[in-house]
C-alpha cells in the first residue's frame, strides 16, 4: 500500500470518531432514559409531578420544558431590539469605522464571559436592582433569568446578523439612495429584506444557545419544580434541574434526569438543524 492510501484511511478513521461519539451519545441517552419512559410512558413529557419520595416516586418533565421555553423565548424577545440595533450600528451606520471595531470587540467579549460569572452578576447586581424597582420581591425567577440569558445570547445573534447585513450588495442600497430614500428607508426596504433569512437564522441559533444554558439560569430561576405561572415567579429549566438534582440522584430519578437530557439534546438539535438549514439555503 502506498503512503497516499494510508493517509486517506487515516483521515477517514479519525473522522469516524466524531460519528461514534455522536452515535454513542444518542445511544447512551436513550438507553439511560428507558426506565423513566417505561415507568411513566409518554406522560413523562406532559406530567407536572416531581416527587422523589420513595414509594410514590413520580417524575414529569413539563415544568422544566415550560421553564426552558419561557425563559428562552423571553430572552429572545429582550435580545432582539438590542442585537438588531447593534448589528445595524456595526454593519450599516458605522461600517468599517473605528467605533464599530471597538463596539464589535466588546460584543464579542460578552461571549467570552463564563456562564457562572453571568450568574454571579445576575445574583448580586441585577437581582437587587429588580427588587429595588419593585418588580419582584425575591428577585428570583423567569424574568431575572431571561434578562441575563438575553445578554448572554446577544453576541451570537449580533455576529451573524452583522455579517449578513455587511454582505448586502452596495449597488442595491445605492439605487434606493439615488431615488431619495433616507437611511432608515433603505434599511427597512432594502437591507432587511435582503438579509432577513440570515438575520432569522442568527436568532434561531441564539435561541438554541439560550435553551442549553445551565449555570446562570440555575443561579437565578429560583429552582422551584413547578410550572412558571407568571413572568416574575420562580421556576426551573431542563438544564438547571439536571445540575441541581444530579448530586443525589440514582435509580429512577437518575433515569428521569437522563430522559430530560435526551429531550434537551433533541430540542437543541432540531433548533440548530433548522438554523443551519436556513443558512445553507442562502448560499
Amino acid at each position, binding site marked *: 500500500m502506498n503512503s497516499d492510501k494510508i493517509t486517506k484511511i487515516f483521515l477517514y478513521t479519525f473522522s469516524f470518531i466524531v460519528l461514534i461519539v455522536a452515535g454513542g451519545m444518542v445511544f447512551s441517552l436513550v438507553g439511560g432514559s428507558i426506565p423513566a419512559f417505561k415507568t411513566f410512558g409518554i406522560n413523562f413529557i406532559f406530567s407536572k409531578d416531581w416527587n422523589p419520595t420513595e414509594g410514590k416516586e413520580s417524575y414529569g418533565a413539563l415544568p422544566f420544558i415550560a421553564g426552558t421555553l419561557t425563559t428562552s423565548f423571553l430572552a429572545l424577545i429582550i435580545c432582539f431590539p438590542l442585537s438588531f440595533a447593534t448589528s445595524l450600528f456595526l454593519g450599516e451606520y458605522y461600517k468599517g469605522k473605528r467605533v464599530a471595531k471597538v463596539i464589535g470587540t466588546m460584543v464579542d467579549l460578552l461571549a467570552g464571559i463564563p456562564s457562572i*460569572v453571568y450568574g454571579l452578576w445576575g445574583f448580586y447586581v441585577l437581582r437587587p436592582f429588580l427588587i429595588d424597582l419593585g418588580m419582584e420581591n425575591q428577585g428570583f425567577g423567569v424574568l431575572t433569568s431571561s434578562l441575563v440569558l438575553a445578554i448572554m445570547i446577544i453576541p451570537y445573534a449580533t455576529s451573524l446578523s452583522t455579517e449578513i447585513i455587511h454582505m448586502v450588495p452596495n449597488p442595491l442600497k445605492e439605487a434606493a439612495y439615488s431615488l431619495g430614500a433616507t437611511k432608515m428607508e433603505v434599511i427597512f426596504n432594502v437591507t432587511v429584506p435582503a438579509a432577513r433569512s440570515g438575520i432569522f437564522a442568527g436568532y434561531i441559533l441564539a435561541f438554541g444557545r439560550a435553551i442549553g444554558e445551565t449555570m446562570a439560569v440555575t443561579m437565578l430561576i429560583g429552582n422551584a419544580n413547578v410550572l412558571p405561572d407568571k413572568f416574575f415567579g420562580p421556576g426551573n429549566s431542563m438544564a438547571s434541574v439536571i445540575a441541581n438534582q444530579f448530586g443525589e440522584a440514582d435509580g429512577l430519578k437518575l433515569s428521569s434526569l437522563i430522559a430530560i437530557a435526551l429531550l434537551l439534546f433533541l430540542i437543541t438539535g432540531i433548533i440548530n438543524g433548522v438554523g443551519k438549514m436556513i443558512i445553507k439555503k442562502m448560499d
Partner: protein
Amino acid sequence: MQAYTEIDNSKARSSKNKVFQYMVIAFSVITISPIVLIIYKLIAEGYKQLSFRFITENTPSTFEAMTAIQNNELIPGGIANGIVGTLIMVLMASAIAIPVGMITGVFLYENQGKRYANFTRNISDILQGVPSIVLGLISYMWIVKNVTNGFSALAGSVALSIMMVPMIVRSTEETLKMIPIAIKEAGLALGVPYYKVILRILIPTGFSGLFTGILLAISRVIGETAPLMLTALGSSVINTNVAKPTSAIPLLIWEFYNDPNMIGLIWSSSLFLMIIVLILNTVSKQIMAKRNK
C-alpha cells in the same frame, strides 16, 4: 404645484430617519453596557484578594474563612487547587480534542462536497450545539461509571474535549479553505507524498489560523462549570491523579457561592478566570489581525 406641496413629507421622513439613528445608537450602548458593568464589578470587588498567595495556596476551610471575616481580615488562602485542576483538565482535553479535531478538519477539507464528508460536518455542527450539561451527563455515564469508577479529572476532560472537537473541526476546515489551492498543487506536482503535503504545506501555511481556533476553543471551555459538576466534582487540595476528583476554577466559584463564609472569594476567583479568558481572546485576536494584514 399644489398637489406636490401636499405630498412633500421629506421633513417628516428626515426627522424619522434621525430619530431611528439615535435609537440605534442608544440600543447599541445598552447592548455593550453589561460587559462594562460586569468587568467593573469583578475588578471593584475582586482586586483586594488577588495576590501571589491567591494563586499559590489552597482554598481555606469554611472555619478559617469565618474566623478571618470575624477578625475583619482578608480571607486567607487561594485557589491553587482550582488552577492546577483547570490546567490539568484543559491540557488533557486539548490533547484529545486537538488531534481529533484537526485531522477531522483536514478530512473535511480534502473531501469537499462528498456525501460522507457533508454528513460528518453536519454531525459535528450538531455536536457543537449540544448543551454542555448534557455532555457532562454523557461523560458521567461513560467515564465516571465505567472507567474511573468515581468522579475524576479524566471524566471532566472528556466532557470538555467533546465540546472542543467541533470548534476545532470547523476552524481547521475554514482555515485550510483560505489557503490558495496553488500552493498545495505545487507540492503535489513535485511528487510530494500526500501526508507530507498536509504536514509540511497545509498546516504550516495555516498555522496562525489553526492556533487561533485552538485558543478560542480553550477560552470557551475554561470557564465551563456545569459539565465539571457532574464529572470532576471538586477537591479542596491539589490533586494530580487524573482518576480522582479534581477541582477547577469555575467549580471553586460555585463552591464559594454556596458557602456563606466563602462569599468573599467569588469575585477574585471570577476576576482571575476572566483575566485568563481575556488574555486568550486578545492573543487570538492579535494573531488573526496580523494574518489578515
